[in-house]
């Protein structure tokens, strides 16, 4: 069973929380990368239709590079399990190769915690100027950003750190990076919309095109950052 993430809202119990929340974000009108969702239990039974569907999806969206992600029972209110799910960047847009890799490497008990209610996302890899993570709580937003697509989540030193509290903004940037007020302004708005919609403080992985924030993932904030402790 397959689903185009941009065109239908997905239930978390059937597609995992990552895919389900991203489909809700898309429905809110906030940009998310196009993604094809392949149900794990269907992949176990056979991959012929997955190859056909992935080929059609690749011809429709024509991504230059693809990311493969798992979506299962992570990103819960009590436990984000951040980084537990599997992400592979820089995959070529070849349907047979993608599905073969998914079948051999992704659809495992370890990756999906059982195949029921889980899926694999074949997602366009956005190629932008800045990537990062934002935490939002009650008008406060913390932002960290790097130039690489998995820099912040991968533990690299951020090129930009920003903190918004009410109307006060403080940004530190290094490595010739120019602090972007437009980015922080849009991120704050996106975080507010997502927090209102989902009903929890949000941890958002994002990409910045220079004009738009693209949401790559949303999960609840499960631990208070040190900056908020006071």
């Amino acid at each position, binding site marked *: 069973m397959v689903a185009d993430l941009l065109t239908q809202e997905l239930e978390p119990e059937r597609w995992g929380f990552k895919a389900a929340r991203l489909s809700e974000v898309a429905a809110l009108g906030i940009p998310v990368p196009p993604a094809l969702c392949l149900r794990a239990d269907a992949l176990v039974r056979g991959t012929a239709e997955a190859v056909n569907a992935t080929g059609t999806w690749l011809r429709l969206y024509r991504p230059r590079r693809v990311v493969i992600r798992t979506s299962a029972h992570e990103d819960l209110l009590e436990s984000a399990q951040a980084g537990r799910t599997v992400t592979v960047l820089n995959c070529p847009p070849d349907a047979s190769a993608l599905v073969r890799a998914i079948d051999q490497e992704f659809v495992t008990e370890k990756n999906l915690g059982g195949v029921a209610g889980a899926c694999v996302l074949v997602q366009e890899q956005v190629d932008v100027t800045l990537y990062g993570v934002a935490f939002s709580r009650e008008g406060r937003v913390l932002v960290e950003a790097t130039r690489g697509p998995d820099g912040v989540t991968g533990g690299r030193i951020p090129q930009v750190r920003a903190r*918004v509290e009410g*109307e006060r*903004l*403080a940004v530190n*940037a290094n490595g*010739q*990076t*120019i*602090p972007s007020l*437009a980015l922080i302004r849009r991120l704050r708005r996106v975080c507010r919309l997502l927090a209102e919609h989902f009903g929890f403080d949000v941890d958002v992985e994002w990409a910045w095109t220079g004009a738009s924030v693209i949401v790559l993932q949303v999960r609840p904030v499960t631990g208070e950052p040190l900056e908020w402790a006071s």
Partner: protein
Amino acid sequence: MNDMGKFEAITALENHGLLCMPVSVFRHPASVTSRQLRDQFGRDAHLVVRTGADSEERNLLRLVGATVEAAAEWINELPPSLSALVQPYDQVLFSVELAVYDGLEAAEIIPGIWELDNQLTPIVVGIQGDRVGLTALNFGTAQTARFHDLVRGHYESPAQVDDWQVATVMEWVRGRRRDLAALRRDLGHSFGLKLHYSTRFGLSPQNLRSTVPHRETWTGNQSSPRPAVAVLTSTNEPIPSGPLLLDVSLAREQHAQLTGFLSRLRKAGTSEVYLRSGLLSHLAINLREAGITVRSAHG
């Protein structure tokens, strides 16, 4: 620190390659002709004429957006103690007060023209090598900025500093860091620049300040706790003792009133004030020169 007149300031900026628009200086002029100005700036040019004394004074006479004929006539009627600095008119889009230290440049940026009565809260950018710190205290809120064009004269419009202005200032500073450092070495101390941005000339220094806040003002190394402050909303109010939060506005032409106000502050023993407007603003400069410590009111 030695006071520096506008003429010396322009000469110093020119010598260090920091003057970004043509400026003609007429020292103590009495017989400037419109032909001289036409030859220099073109027949249909509109001009700005600023005046300078032999010492660093602010809020002297100026003429904005004049024809060459009007400019020549105005210059020739100046008091003999003043010199005239003539430059092309161009609409100012944003203003910067830049403080240059050893290893640190701090810029306050506001939209429009930054004059004495401007109470806008600036965006503050501190540049240390390839590291940048930016602080905005009214993030996301447009402020009412003052502009000037030849059709409307002075007018107000909602505006805010955004990425493009910040990037422009950062690029300007980084591209001229060597020149700024050389000027600081020549002067023998940290200094400030007032800059205007216009479409035709980009960022161009308008003046050079010999006084700037202590470096710690920007680096956050001040350790003293914030005391309780009294708020002063008018220059005519009685001045209470102790630190003050100044929430006052003084128009450019009210310099005499400012002088009187500074005198009253001194007599009242005021040694410390907090400002909501910029720490590099005209008001802040005058307060510092009166020996008063100026701090930001925004924690």
